[in-house]
């Protein structure tokens, strides 16, 4: 039933993506309205789904990784909608944001276990755990935005370098615009991720000192992957001061950061790597369907 609900909004996003892809063959503003309409519909259904999830779990903010990734895809879809409405109709925003949204939803639905958060974890970390999650979620939103902007930059640069004949009905933001969005997202992501990770590490250290079973060791794949992502963002931030680190080099680093993000939230679960990240370990032990 849960996956069926997810399929409702994921399917609507997929239809919006199909309409977006048709821009290379179909002209007229109607296609744009249908595409944005479907995207909006998908987002509204997802909002209702997340609202219901929050109601049934009793948490206003996402607590588990599954809820976090779902919320992440929801925010990315909202940003995609905003950009689609703000930028000219010819700009293929959905072409880049919708696959990210669908990828996150698919990753969450298929690979991340769901289930109630263990009571002990909740009691111990109720407030700071949520703050940790919210910071990481906000940082992840920025990472997704930086990734989408990086994709747009690379696609636009590739088209310009190859001097391919420009097809009508399909255009991308200017290189400068993509670069600006990417830079802004990277700048915002770094402090958010730093704060989120620091809180997480402190929480874990406190739990380990208390001898609690749900403390996360330093060598946990999730922790290592998250630190890798943070490191890449630190390099990206540093790159702003180095002229040689602009353009494609920065975009490639952004892709690496996004890969770390996906690995942290989805990859570890998909590969079934041993992770002690509280809720997941408990949920798995509790018998995830």
């Amino acid at each position: 039933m849960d996956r069926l609900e997810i399929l409702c909004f994921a399917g609507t996003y997929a239809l919006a993506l199909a309409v977006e892809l048709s821009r290379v063959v179909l002209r007229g503003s109607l296609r744009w309205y249908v595409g944005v309409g479907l995207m909006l519909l998908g987002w509204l259904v997802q909002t209702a789904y997340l609202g219901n999830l929050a109601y049934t779990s009793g948490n206003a903010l996402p607590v588990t990784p599954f809820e976090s990734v779902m919320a992440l895809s929801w925010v990315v879809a909202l940003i995609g909608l905003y950009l689609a409405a703000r930028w000219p109709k010819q700009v293929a925003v959905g072409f880049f944001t919708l696959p990210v949204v669908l990828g996150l939803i698919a990753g969450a639905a298929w690979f991340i276990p769901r289930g109630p958060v263990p009571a002990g974890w909740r009691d111990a970390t109720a407030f700071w755990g949520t703050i940790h999650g919210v910071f990481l979620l906000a940082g992840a939103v920025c990472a997704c935005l930086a990734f989408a902007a990086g994709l747009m930059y690379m696609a636009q640069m590739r088209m310009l370098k190859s001097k391919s004949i420009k097809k009508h009905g399909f255009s991308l933001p200017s290189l400068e615009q993509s670069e600006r969005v990417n830079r802004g997202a990277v700048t915002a992501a770094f402090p958010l991720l730093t704060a989120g990770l620091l809180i997480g590490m402190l929480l874990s250290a406190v739990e380990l000192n208390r001898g609690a079973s749900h403390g996360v060791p330093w060598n946990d794949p999730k922790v290592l992957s998250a630190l890798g992502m943070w490191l890449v963002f630190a390099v990206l931030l540093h790159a702003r001061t180095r002229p040689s680190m602009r353009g494609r080099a920065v975009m490639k680093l952004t892709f690496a950061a996004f890969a770390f993000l996906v690995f942290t939230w989805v990859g570890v679960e998909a590969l079934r790597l041993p992770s002690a990240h509280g809720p997941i370990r408990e949920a798995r032990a509790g018998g995830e369907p």
Partner: protein
Amino acid sequence: MRLFALGVDHRSAPAAIREALAFGDGRLDAGLDALRGSFPKSEFVVLSTCNRVEVYAGGPVEAAPDVETLSEFLADFHRLRRDAFAGHLVGYQDEAVVGHLFRVAASLESLVLGEGQILGQVREAYRSAVARKAAGPIFHSVFQNALRVGKLVREKTGMNQGKLSVASVAVDLAREVFDTFHDKTVLVIGAGKMGDLTLQHLKDLKPGRILVVNRNPERAQEVAERWSGEAVPFERLNQALIEADVVVSTTAAAEPIVEYDQYARIQRARRNRLALILDIAIPRDFDPRIGDLDQVTLYHVDDLRAQAEHNLSQRRKGVEPALRIIERETTACYTALRGQEDAGAILRQLGDQADQVRSRELDFLFQNLPDLSEADRAAIAHMASRLQNQFLHHPRAAVRSAAAEPAPADAPHPVLTAVRHLFGLAETPAPRPELKKTT
């Protein structure tokens, strides 16, 4: 009803004739007033652009001007000899007028296929005619439809998409690299005609600074003054390249003036900022390998020309679908016009016939009742008039509503036929001419 259009365009007349017949410099209003004065029962719209001067006329068949009278009017108004331009005139009649105007609005008749200006010019021509009370019900319908069809054709065929000149393609390219231009510097190297033209287009983007470099300092100064820029000595080319975001190069140098290693150093000095180089010179001014540098987009004139040619071929592909749309819309518009005319004739006939019957019956009644006072007679006449109007209210509403509905092109609306039949109205002799173009 008779529709008529007469004029000259870029195909039929040289620029000198078009200029002589143009209604420019405030003469449009005077022209419309003069036309209205000469043909008070007709409607007029005058479309006067640099590529065409056309007078559209419409009205009752007996009062509408023809080729002779309109060309005489043009000769008198512009103080020209008629034979100086008569051979260049192109005329259209009835349905062909609608088709021609739709093609004009859709930019199929323009010098640059698919250009966007003409739709605005048609709108302006119509607005001017409305303002001078020269346009009436016929041209309200025809011109409003023309504006709609012009927009529809562009939307459905993409006729207006893609630029056709090298200079405007360059501007599109600049927009793909940069988002804002007020903080950008444009550098022009050389002072060729093509560079001038490209700069003219780039100027529309309102760049923050324009630098001009030329081996000839006087020439550089001259170009810089024309475009409100700064002249830079040729010896300071490297510094200018460091400052520039968009470079337009048009020198006549036999060898590249900027080598790969040189520009790689410049790009480092620029802190690897985005750069767009438009090398419009033949032979090239910039080493083509410069385009491989990160953050640098280098386009040669051939690349720009290829895009412009592709855009033109795309527009040409849109002509056939555009003509199909126009044919369909022309038929619909003209049929609706004829329907309105038929309906108007029926309404007039219906009113006249009812008036006759009422008058006859009132005369008969008043003859048989000679003692009726004037007040009684007036009251009875008033009642008869009210009865007539009430009886005719529904048939009239049905006729008006039928006129607004689509009907077969070769026959009147069935409701109009039925009303004629029911009320015994005679057919009005309205000719339905075929599509015509007269030269």
